[in-house]
C-alpha cells in the first residue's frame, strides 16, 4: 500500500481508497489522490457480477429443489436428464442446464439472525465482531471507482408470509461505508430523490455556489470528513446526471419482458436486478421474505412458487439471451432449509441452494441427502466452502486478508473454506 497522504488518517485512507471514492471527482478536487484509480480492475477479463436471490426465513428444500418420494409435492423432470424438482417450478425446470443444485448444505446455524449473519458474512456471529457481507466484499473487490452507480444495490422484493424479524442488513464493517448497499425499497420507484426539487437551471446555480464554498472549507480545514462529504455529493450528483440511472426505471422495459418476469414485487425486483447488472453493477441482492413456514410449507410454497418460478426462470433466460449469463452468477438461497416432510421447523443440517450461470459447470447436482432427507449422504458443504465457491466463481481471491479497525487480520473466507472444485470450470 502506498504511503497515505499525511492529511488523511490511516483509517480514513483505508476507507476512502477501499470505497473507491478517491478517484471519483468530476471537478478535479481530488487530483492528489487520483492515483488510486489505477487500482481499477485492469485484468482484461470480463468482470463478473452476482445476483443473490435471498429467501428470507428459510425455504423448504422438500418443496423446491430436493424432493423425496414421500414429499408433499410431486417431482417433475427437468431439462437435464435425471434431475427432478418441484412440480410447481416448471419454468425453472426448463432452465436446469444453467443451474447447479447444491443439495448437501450443512451449515449448523438454525436460529434466524445467526444464520442470516453466517450465510451473508461467512463467519459465525460471535463477540460483536462485525464482518462485511458478501455484497460489500463484491463491491470492494469488483467495483470500479469511476463507475457512476453504487457497486452494491439491495432490493426489497416483498414479504409473503412469516418473515421472522427484519431483513438482514449487510454492513461493510471494516471495508468502509461506501460499500454499504444502496437500498431500493420499491423496485417500481427506483431511487428516490434523484430529481431536483427546483428547475434544472436553478439547481445548477445552487450546486455551483455550493461547490465553490466547499473548495474554500476543504482548503482551510484540510478535513477528510469534508472530503468524504463532498465526494458523496459528487457521487449523488453524478447519479442524478447519469444516463445509467435509467437502469433503475423498470418501466423502460417492454411490456413483454415485464410480463415474463411476472406481476409481483419479486418479479419487478429481478427485472431491476438484471437491468443493474447490465449496466455494470457488480452485486445485486433481492430479498423475498416470508419463508418461515412454521405451520407447514405445503400451502405457502405453492403460492410463492407461482411468481418465484416466473421471475427466476425469466431472469436466467433473459441473462442468457443477452449474453450475460456466463459473467453473472445467480444464487438462490435462504439462511437454512426446513425439516424434511412438512417443512415446519428450521433445518440447517441438510439443505439446498441453487447456483446458476456465472461460468460454472451447471446442469448438475452437488451432494446428496439420504432417503429421509435428514442427513447429508454425500459431500457436505459448509458455510465457508459455500462462500469460497461464490467468491471463486466471481473471480475474487477468497484468501485475501483484510484488517479490522482494531488491527485484527480477517480473511474474506475463514481458513477451512474451499471452493467446490466440481463446479469450477
Amino acid at each position: 500500500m502506498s504511503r497515505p497522504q499525511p492529511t488523511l488518517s490511516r483509517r480514513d485512507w483505508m476507507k476512502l481508497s477501499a470505497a473507491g471514492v478517491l478517484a471519483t471527482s468530476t471537478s478535479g478536487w481530488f487530483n492528489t489522490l487520483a492515483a488510486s484509480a489505477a487500482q481499477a480492475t485492469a485484468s482484461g477479463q470480463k468482470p463478473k457480477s452476482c445476483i443473490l436471490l435471498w429467501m428470507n426465513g428459510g425455504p423448504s428444500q422438500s418443496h423446491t429443489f430436493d424432493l423425496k418420494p414421500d414429499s408433499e409435492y410431486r417431482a417433475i423432470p427437468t431439462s437435464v436428464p435425471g434431475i427432478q424438482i418441484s412440480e410447481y417450478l416448471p419454468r425453472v425446470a426448463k432452465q436446469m442446464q444453467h443451474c447447479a443444485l447444491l443439495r448437501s448444505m450443512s451449515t449448523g446455524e438454525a436460529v434466524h439472525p445467526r444464520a442470516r449473519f453466517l450465510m451473508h458474512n461467512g463467519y459465525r456471529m460471535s463477540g460483536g465482531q462485525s464482518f462485511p457481507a458478501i455484497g460489500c466484499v463484491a463491491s470492494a473487490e469488483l467495483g470500479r471507482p469511476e463507475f457512476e452507480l453504487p457497486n452494491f444495490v439491495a432490493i426489497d422484493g416483498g414479504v409473503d408470509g412469516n418473515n421472522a424479524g427484519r431483513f438482514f442488513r449487510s454492513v461493510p464493517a471494516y471495508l468502509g461505508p461506501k460499500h454499504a448497499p444502496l437500498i431500493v425499497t420499491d423496485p417500481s420507484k427506483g431511487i428516490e430523490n434523484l430529481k431536483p426539487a427546483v428547475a434544472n437551471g436553478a439547481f445548477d446555480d445552487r450546486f455551483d455556489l455550493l461547490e465553490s464554498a466547499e473548495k474554500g472549507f476543504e482548503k482551510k480545514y484540510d478535513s477528510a470528513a469534508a472530503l468524504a462529504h463532498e465526494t458523496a455529493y459528487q457521487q449523488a450528483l453524478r447519479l442524478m446526471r447519469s444516463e445509467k440511472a435509467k437502469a433503475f426505471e423498470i418501466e423502460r422495459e417492454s411490456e413483454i419482458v415485464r410480463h415474463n418476469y411476472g406481476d409481483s414485487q419479486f418479479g419487478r425486483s429481478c427485472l431491476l436486478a438484471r437491468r443493474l447488472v447490465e449496466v455494470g453493477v457488480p452485486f445485486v441482492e433481492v430479498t423475498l421474505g416470508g419463508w418461515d413456514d412454521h405451520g407447514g410449507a405445503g400451502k405457502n410454497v405453492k403460492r410463492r412458487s407461482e411468481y418465484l418460478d416466473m421471475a427466476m426462470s425469466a431472469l436466467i433466460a433473459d441473462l442468457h439471451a443477452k449474453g450475460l449469463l456466463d459473467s453473472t452468477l445467480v444464487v438462490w438461497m435462504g439462511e437454512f432449509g426446513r425439516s424434511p416432510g412438512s417443512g415446519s421447523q428450521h433445518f440447517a443440517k441438510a439443505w439446498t441452494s441453487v447456483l446458476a450461470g456465472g461460468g460454472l459447470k451447471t446442469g448438475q447436482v452437488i451432494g446428496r441427502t439420504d432417503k429421509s432427507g435428514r442427513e447429508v449422504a454425500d459431500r457436505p458443504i459448509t458455510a465457508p466452502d459455500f462462500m469460497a465457491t461464490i467468491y471463486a466463481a466471481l473471480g475474487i481471491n477468497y484468501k485475501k486478508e483484510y484488517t479490522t479497525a482494531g488491527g485484527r487480520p480477517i480473511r474474506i473466507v475463514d481458513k477451512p473454506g474451499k471452493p467446490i472444485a466440481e463446479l469450477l470450470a
Partner: protein
Amino acid sequence: MKIFTHLAAVTAVGLAIACGVESVVQGAPAANIRQQRKIQRQNAKAAAEAKPTPAPAQPKTAPTTAPVKVAPPIVSGRREPMAIAAEIDRLIDEQLAAAKVPASAMADDGEFIRRAYLDITGRVPSASAVGSFLSTTDPAKRARLIDELLAAPQFGSSLASIWRRVLVPPDANQNKPPNYVAFEAWMADRFNENRPFDQTVRSLLMAEGPVAESPQGIFYIANADAKSFPQADILTRTTSQAFMGVQLQCAQCHDHPFNTQWKQSDFWGMAAFFGRVQNVAAGGKGAAGGASIIEKIQQNGAKKGKPAAKVVANGSIIIPEESFHNVGTVIPAKFPAGPQPSVGDVPQLRPAFAVWLTAPENKYFGPCIANRFWEHFMGRGIVNPVDDFNPDNKPSHPELLAALSREFVQSGFDIKHLVRCICNSCAYQRSSVPVEGNKGENNFFARMEIKVLSPEALADSLEVALEGRAVMPAAAMMRPAAKKGGYPANTPRDHFVNFFNTKEEGAEAGDYSYGIPQALMLMNQVQFNNGAAVVDRLVKTAPPRERVVEQLYLATLSRKPAAEEMKQSLAYILKQRTPRDGYNGLLWTLVNRSEFVLNH
C-alpha cells in the same frame, strides 16, 4: 495498523523539526495568542483561589441483598473547574512542547458557540443566540455560556441519545425494538438532575420490576435475543465496553488471542452476574422456566421467563455451545481480572457486580467514563478507541487521564463538573484549522478534531436553522399514538434519524459515513428546497439583502459571511427570479455544506 500510526507520528515530528518550529503557538495569530494567554491567566488565578468544595452527599445505594458492602467512598471534594482546566492545559502543552508540535489558534467566538451548543446540547445555536454572543464583551462569556448550556434540558436529552447508542447494541433485538423513548427520557432526567453517575449506572445494572415503572430495565430488554429474553453474553459485552472500556467479548470463545489480559473465565465469570436475569414477560416459544426467577425484569403482557444464560443452582454459568472452547465448563461469578466474591446463598448477583464496578477505587470505571466524556468533546479519546483499554493501546496522555479520572471520582461522579473542567480548557477552545506543523497530527490535541454531526444532531440542527419546518412538519410535531404493545410510533424525526443512521460500529467521531441516499435526500427533498420559516420571517420586513444573507449564515453556520462569501451570495441572489428564490437557494447551499454537517 499501529505501525502506521507510529510512522505518521514520527514523520510529523520530523516535519515539525525540519520546518524549524520552535514555539508551540507559532502560526497562531497574535490576537489569538493574547486570548489564549488571557484564558490561561484567568484559569490560573481561579486555580490559585480554588478551595476544594465539598462533594455532593454520596447517594445511598438502595439497600440490596448484595454480599459485597459499598466501600466507604474516598471522596475528598471537588476542585474549581478552572483549576482542573488549567491542569488539563499544562499536561497537554507539556507534551506539545516536548514533541515540538505547534498548537492551533484559539477558536473565535463563532466557532466556539457553535461547538459548545453542538457538544453540550446537540444542536446549533439560533441566529439570535449567535448574534448576542458575538456582540457581548463580557470576558467570562465562554464560561458563562457553558454554564447556561449545562442548565438547558437539551443537555440531558442529547447525552441520553448518545448513551442509548452505547448501551443498546445496533443489532439488538430485531423483532421487538425496545422502547427507546422511555429509556432516553430516564437517562435525560438523570443527566439534567446531575445525579452522580455511579448511582445512575448502579440503578441501570440493578434494574428490577416492570419497565413501565423502571425504564432503566429497558437496558435488559435491549441486550436480549429476538424474543426479548436478556442474554448474559450480550450484557457482558455491552457492560464491559460501556463502563469499563474493555473488549471483554474477545475472550468469549477462547482466551484473548492478542493480549493475555483476558481469559475466557473473565468473560463468563462476569456473565454469571447476569445469568439469572430474566424478562418474565418475553413472549414466544422457548421461554421455559429457569433455575431462578429472582432477578427478573418484567414487561407488560408477561407470560413466561427464561434466564439470561444456562446457570447452575449457585449462579455459576455454563459455557454454551457456541463458544468452541471449554463448552460445558462451569464458571462461578467472578470480577474481571479480579476475585470471586463469596455469593453464598444470595439470590441476586448483579448488586455485587454493580457495587464493585462503581466503587471509587475501581480501576476501570472512573478512567473509562472520564475518557468517554473527553472523547465526546475532543473527538478523540485519551485512550482511543474509548472501548479498547488494553496494554497495547496506551493512553496518549496518561497523567491527564489520571487527573480527569481522579477529579471525576472525587467530585462524586459529577458529570456537569467534568464537562465544565473540559470545556473551560484552552485545549477544548482551540480552532480546528490546522497550522503548519500540526496537520494530520491527531495524537496531541494540538487543534480541535473535526466531528461529524450525529443523525440526531443533524435533525435538531436543521430544525433550529430552518426554524422548524425541516424534519418535523408542524402537523407532525406530536408523536403519533402508541402502536399495539405500547411502543411509541416513529415521528418524522425518527425516520430522518433512521435514514441517516449509517454509522458502522467502531467508527470515530470524525468518520463521515453518510452516503448517496442521504445527500440526495438533503439536496432534493422539498422541505430543504423551497424555503423555510426563517426565510419567511426575514423577508417580511423587506430588509437589505446583505442583512438576510448575514442572518442565514448566522442561522446555519453560526458565523457572519466572509467578504468573498457575501459577494458571491449577493451575485447569486441577483441572478435568481426573485430575491426569495435567491434566499431559498442560498439557504439550500448552506445546509448542504460540509461546514454545516461538521462540528469544527
